């Protein structure tokens, strides 16, 4: 399980970083999304990998998982979502001004 999660995280991060380094805003945005997925999953597993323990204190149940990373990940998802939406709007604004999706669209400077 640990190996699988680590591999998935590594793959997501690698793809994300590769896409961020691409020259078009569309792939950069995709890359940032992948990277933020990787980060969210990483925070989530900050509470350790437990598949049967609820994040609640239930009488009679001794095994529980830490609920805080779930709250953190929720915050991170919301913020990441808002930021990505803004970036899409900005990319559209740049495309409308320059007619190109290139990150350095519009010539000099």
């Amino acid at each position: 399980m640990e190996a699988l999660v680590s591999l998935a995280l590594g793959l997501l991060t690698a793809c994300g970083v590769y896409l961020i380094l691409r020259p078009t805003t569309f792939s950069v945005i995709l890359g940032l999304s992948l990277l933020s997925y990787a980060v969210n999953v990483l925070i989530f597993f900050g509470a350790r990998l437990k598949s049967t323990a609820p994040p609640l204190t239930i009488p009679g149940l001794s095994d529980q998982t830490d609920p805080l990373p779930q709250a953190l990940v929720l915050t991170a998802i919301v913020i990441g979502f808002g930021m990505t939406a803004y970036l899409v709007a900005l990319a559209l604004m740049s495309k409308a001004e320059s007619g190109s999706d290139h990150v350095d669209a519009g010539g000099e400077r």
Partner: protein
Amino acid sequence: MMAHLPILPVLIPLAAAVLLLIAANAGLAVTRAISVASLILLAVVGAVVLDAANDGTIRVYRLGDWPAPYGIVLVLDRLSALMVALTSFLGVAVVLAAVSGTDARGRYFHAFLQFQMMGLNGAFLTGDLFNLFVFFEILLLASYGLLVHGGGLQRARAGIAYVVLNLSGSALFLIALGLLYGFLGTLNMVDFGVALQSVAPVDQGVVAVMCMLLVTVFLLKAAVLPIGFWLPHVYTAATLPVAALFVIMTKVGIYAALRVTTIGLAAAPFTADLLQPWLTWLALGTIALGCVGMFAATTFGLLIANLVIISGGTLLLAVAEPTVTSIAAALYYLVQTTLVTGALFLIADALSRQRGDVADRFTDGPRLQSFTAIGLIYLVIGVAACGAPPLSGFLGKIMVMQAMSGSTHPVLVWTALIVSGFAAALVLARAASVFFWEPGAPGFADRPDLPYVPARGLSLALVVMFCAVVAVSFAAAPVSSYARATAEQILAREAYVPAVLGDPAAVQRERRP
């Protein structure tokens, strides 16, 4: 009311921002009135906060009354009070400059400005690492809006680069926080220091790397050498009053690095000297980069952006080797450099309004219609900016040099500070000769149609900043004694533990597998 003092610098701009969004269609006069009133109120609160913190107590404000480390706390000590007061003051000058027409070039300028103030003040006040992340995002999101205010391709492109960079920075921030929480089980800054002391030797490597990653994110905000190339690009794309506000944003990075170093990393032996070997060299490199950038600058805005880079490097020198004298010197330098570079951006705004299409480029342009008052302000602020006696820049640099004489590389630090001062003097004089002494070049008719006197708000903002720089120079003794008391307070880490956590032994700590 005084019990709720620590949260007021966050609530006032939040309330104003919400009000501004509701009143978005009420016309420019109403939004301007709300925004200016809110920021003046904020500046008054900033002064009250500064006065309250000066008694040396550490005020802790528990949000929702949850005890730390379970709940989020705001911590008002001398350092956060100083930063809040400085930010609020700068906010007043920026809003006064912006109402002279800049705010009419797009929608929601004032709402973004208020959210930016909220994020800045929150970042300075919070005592929780994840809450710091949230306030960072608030101030960044507002800064994205302010950056592209006015529209145009250059702003959109700078905006994309800036947003992508900061989203990547946020991802690194979250990676560091996620893993640190996984190992330490806490996000409270004070408790973070306590928990660092009991990290098992086998985990120390990962924890140390995550601490470095955390500080790297702060250095990205502070525009330090390998990750600071975004700054000139972004600051020159923004409208000039916005650039004046952005001056404080690099200081947020320095503040966060200083806070995390003194309250957290200094607590455990394996993290205490983690950064020192890197930061001094990065700081020196940043100063060198800023000097080169100043000479290469083609516009006045770009020149000032490079001055901001140099000031970030100078401040980082103190973070690299935190002692009472170095932090005290850095804090005085921080106050004066924020005021000086902010004032320079406002001067650039006043000048470019009189130069028409040429704006603040270092080329021949129409003759200035009015130059006596602005020339004098430029002279005084320029003297302070390059660190020549008798003004605050000189005092700040002397204090930093004195504090650094006991550091590991005193000769290099002294050389860097002196050379950067001379370089700044040279380029500022060259800029002045272009703006004030060149007669109207052939091909440029005099432009009496351009404003003869800068608009009222901008003039007022210039006067306010000018008075502040002069005040910081002549009231150097109280400011620097406050800075010294601040340095002593933040280095006495143990005093924060009972103030924030109560009895740390009572905190039930889950032992991580």
